[in-house]
Each structure stands twice: as C-alpha cells, then as structure tokens.
C-alpha cells in the first residue's frame, strides 16, 4: 500500500471512528438530565424571561429564540461526555482503541452539532408555523445554524477538557462561560443598542456572529459585515477544536 493510500485509509478509519463516537454519545448522553436541563430547559426559561410581559415583534423573538436554543443545546453535550466517561470508568478503554484523540474530539463535536441543530429546528419551525415571520435569506439562516452549531459544539468539547472527575464541575464551568457570552451577544438587546462596553465585548462571543447571521436570515439588518459572520464562526470552531485536542492530549499524556 502506498503512503497516500495508507494515509487515506487511516483518515477514513478515523472518520468512521468519529462517527461511532458521535453515535455512542447520542445513545448515551442526549437524554441525560444535565443535557436536558442545561441544553433544553435553560433556553425555554430564558425565552420566557425574555419575552413575557414585553410586547416584542415576532420577527425579533424568533431569530433570538433559534440562536439561543442553538447556543445552549449544541454546547450542552460536549461538557458532559468526557467527565461522565471518566467518572463511569469508560474513558480509559475509549482512548486505548485505535481511534486518535482528534477523532474522539471530532465525534464529541459532531454529537453536539447534531443535537444543537435538531433542537434549534423546534423554535424555528414553531416560529415559521405560528407567527408571521418568514425566511428572507435561506443561505444566511442555514449558514448561521450550521456554523453556529459547529462553533458552540466545539466550545462545549473544549469546556470538557479540564481533567476533573465528575461532570458537575464542568457543567458549572460551562455555565460560567456560556451565560456571560450570551448576555453580550445581542440576543436580548441588539448589539447596536447595547452600552459601549458591551459592544466592545460582543465580538468575543461566537453567539454574536451566529445570531447576526440568523437575524439576517429573517430579513433583519445585521450588525457585522455579512462575510465576517461565517468567517468568525469557522475560526471559533477551528480554535476551540484545536484547543480541545491539545488539552485532551496533554491530559492523557500526564495520566490525568
């Protein structure tokens, strides 16, 4: 077998491994209480807190709800998987299979990605069915949902990287990171209307770009240039995934 062939065989084997890891995560973790509480109930309650008693137009609520659902659901699976596997003593066997850490991380990202997209479709379809909102740019909407799910899921996996024994620490850490990033992302108040300090902070949140993209998808005016949103979401995804791999490899090498 030539080097190129063996390289492509290895890549295909690792890709299959990543899909297997994602399937395993879907079977085991999608319906675990921490995922349902922090991934599904959180955005519902935030939505209620955000919209009850305020007369807001549907074309502002629906994009915000889709982006928020995506933010919480896509980033909810990753933080649970590795700490749970460490605690339930299945992690060591997983990393001793011929699946590289990078493929395991890719599988974890993939499972969060699929979970995020599935659940964000609920407010999207409900919004389209029961309000007068309409999709103005499918490209922008799909771009926001797909790239947003990838970035948020990668963030979730990165949050799981610290070698702690017990998912509760990581779930706490994940909320410590996710909630401030939510508040500066322009979900509740458009970025242009936020105070200056918050406008400065908005670009550090991947949710800002995703929400901007989704809003454009519903025909609203964007805050960032259109091209910047997908670029930043891809960069965030790459950075989070790379950092997650580095941390996981480092923890493994040190036996943590």
């Amino acid at each position: 077998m030539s080097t190129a062939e063996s390289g492509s065989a290895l890549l295909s084997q690792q890709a299959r491994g990543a899909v297997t890891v994602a399937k395993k995560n879907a079977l085991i973790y999608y319906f675990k209480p921490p995922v349902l509480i922090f991934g599904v109930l959180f955005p519902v309650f935030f939505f209620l807190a955000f919209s009850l008693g305020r007369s807001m137009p549907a074309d502002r609520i629906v994009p915000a709800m889709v982006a928020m659902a995506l933010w919480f659901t896509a980033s909810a699976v990753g933080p649970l998987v590795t700490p749970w596997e460490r605690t339930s003593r299945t992690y060591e066997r997983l990393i001793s299979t011929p699946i590289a850490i990078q493929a395991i991380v890719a599988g974890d990202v993939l499972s969060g990605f699929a979970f995020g997209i599935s659940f964000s479709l609920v407010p999207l379809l409900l919004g389209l069915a029961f309000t007068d909102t309409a999709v103005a740019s499918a490209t922008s909407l799909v771009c926001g949902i797909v790239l947003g799910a990838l970035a948020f899921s990668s963030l979730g996996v990165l949050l799981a990287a610290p070698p702690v024994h017990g998912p509760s620490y990581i779930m706490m850490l994940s909320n410590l990171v996710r909630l401030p990033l939510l508040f500066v992302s322009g979900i509740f108040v458009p970025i242009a209307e936020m105070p200056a300090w918050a406008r400065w902070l908005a670009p550090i949140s991947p949710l800002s770009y995703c929400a901007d993209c989704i809003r454009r998808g519903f025909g609203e005016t964007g805050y960032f240039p259109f091209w910047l949103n997908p670029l930043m979401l891809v960069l965030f995804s790459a950075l989070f995934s790379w950092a997650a791999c580095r941390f996981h490899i480092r923890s493994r090498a040190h036996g943590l």
Partner: protein
Amino acid sequence: MIRVRGLTRHYGELVAVDHIDFEVHRGEIFGFLGPNGAGKTTTIRMLTGVIDPTEGSASIDGHDIRTKAIAARRHLGILPEDANVYVDLTVWQNVMLMGELLGAGRRERRLRGEELLETFGLQDRRAQKGRALSKGLRQRLMVCMALIGDPDLLFLDEPTSGLDVASARLIRQIVAERNRRGLTVFLTTHNMGEAEELCDRVAIIDHGKIAAIDTTEGLMRVARSRQSVDVEFAGESPPAAELEAIPDVTAVKRDASRYVLYSEQPGQVAQQIATLATERGYDIAAISTRKPSLEDVYLFLTESNGSP
C-alpha cells in the same frame, strides 16, 4: 510481539516504573506480577497508549507506542483493571460499539458478537442494560468487548479479581483456549494459582523495577531456599532448636505439631528428620517435601526487594 526498553514513568517525585526492559513473544501468555503499587497497571497503561512514558521506548508488533500509536493499538484487546461497561447501553450495544471502535466490519462484528455472547453465557442477557449486570457478568462482557476486534494481543489487568468461581474459571478457560489459537496475552494478576496455571513466562515487578523474568519453573528454581520439608509428629514433638540444628536447614516454622523446615536440600533433610525421630523416639505422623509455589517465589523476590 512486545519489546520494552528502559520504560520509565514518573508521577512528580514518584518513580512508578523505573527503566524496565522485557519482551513478550508472539503466542505466549506473559504474566506480570507484583504487589499493589509496584507499577503493573502503569506499565499496561503506557503500553496501551493511555499515558505516555517519561523515558524509554516500547513497541507492539514493531510499531512504536508513541510515534506509531494508532498502528500499535490496532490489534489490541484490552481489559483495564478499573474499567466499566457502558451502563446505559445493552450488552449487545456494548459489544457492537467496541467492535465498531476497533474497526471490525458490520457483518464481522455481528458474527463475532453472537459467538462471544454464546461463549460467555450472555445470550439471554443481550437486551439487558450494563447497569443491571452483576460484577461477574460485567467482567464477562468486558472480556467480550476486548475480544470483539479479534486481537493478536490481549492485555488483561486483574481479569478475575473479585469474581465468582464460575466466572473466573470461564475467563481462564477462554483465555487459555484463545492462546492455543495463537493469541498473545499480557496478564497481570494477584492470583498466583492463575499465573501458575496460565503463564508461559512471568515477570515480577517490585518498586517499579523488574525483579525477575523467567518461566514459572525457572523462577521456582531461583527460590530454591524456599523448598521445604513438612513434618507432623504424633504425640511428643522435638523442640524447634533440635530441628534447626539439622545441617542445611535455613529456617523452621512451627504450627502446633507441624513443622516446616526450609532447605535447599529437602530430600537430605527429610532423611535426617527420620533418623532423628528414630534415635530420639519421636513418632512421625506425616512427612513430605515441597517445592516452592509461584507464591513462595513471588514473596521471596518481593520481600527481598528484587535481590534473590
């Protein structure tokens, strides 16, 4: 199959494994014995890619465990000491998941899975969740998961520890049977009987260093001073000092009317005990010579800190 050179692992100041060297040949069952904390599990964790060595090198089937880690792990089956099954998955899902992770094709892993569940008596429980299984059944399932990829090399870390007799025996039988079909096995155990029964060669590790490596017979020869004569007197027994005075006796232990006399020449010592008994009028109820067991050798080597 496995080649280890100067393998070392530090945890901060602690040297868990200290420049060990050994080889495991294809087709053998290699026992890796040692007291708790001696470095057995750390060695397995390094060889299976769970942690990196601090120094030294190791290769599996010619693949360096660090530079060719994926290739080195491709044909391994692993039963980690402190592992568990996926408790939220069924028995069948656990086996299939591991087959998929190990790269077995769909048809291949189904056929093997059916065969393994049958062999390990888990067919009736295939739809049962991992959490519903007893410790013995979980361990059987974990061995199934280790074998589903049809490995060339199987790492077993304390595979029968804490198991019921039937499960332990079943696992031993299947390991021996697979070994006859060519499987190489790297086994750590605290059960000396198990090591004696299964292993072709044994390494004894203590304080992170290899104290001895040999066949079980070879190791027993190393501990010749642990050969003994067991003698039981009916009625009056001689004082211990009288037995200690017999030439070539290195130590005497007394347990009621039974004495154990350690010597490198147990046959001659037995004859002298008989002569002594005849001369002094002691009545011997039973007398026998005993070769050291692997347990004696293990204790001898680990208590003498690796310098027999």
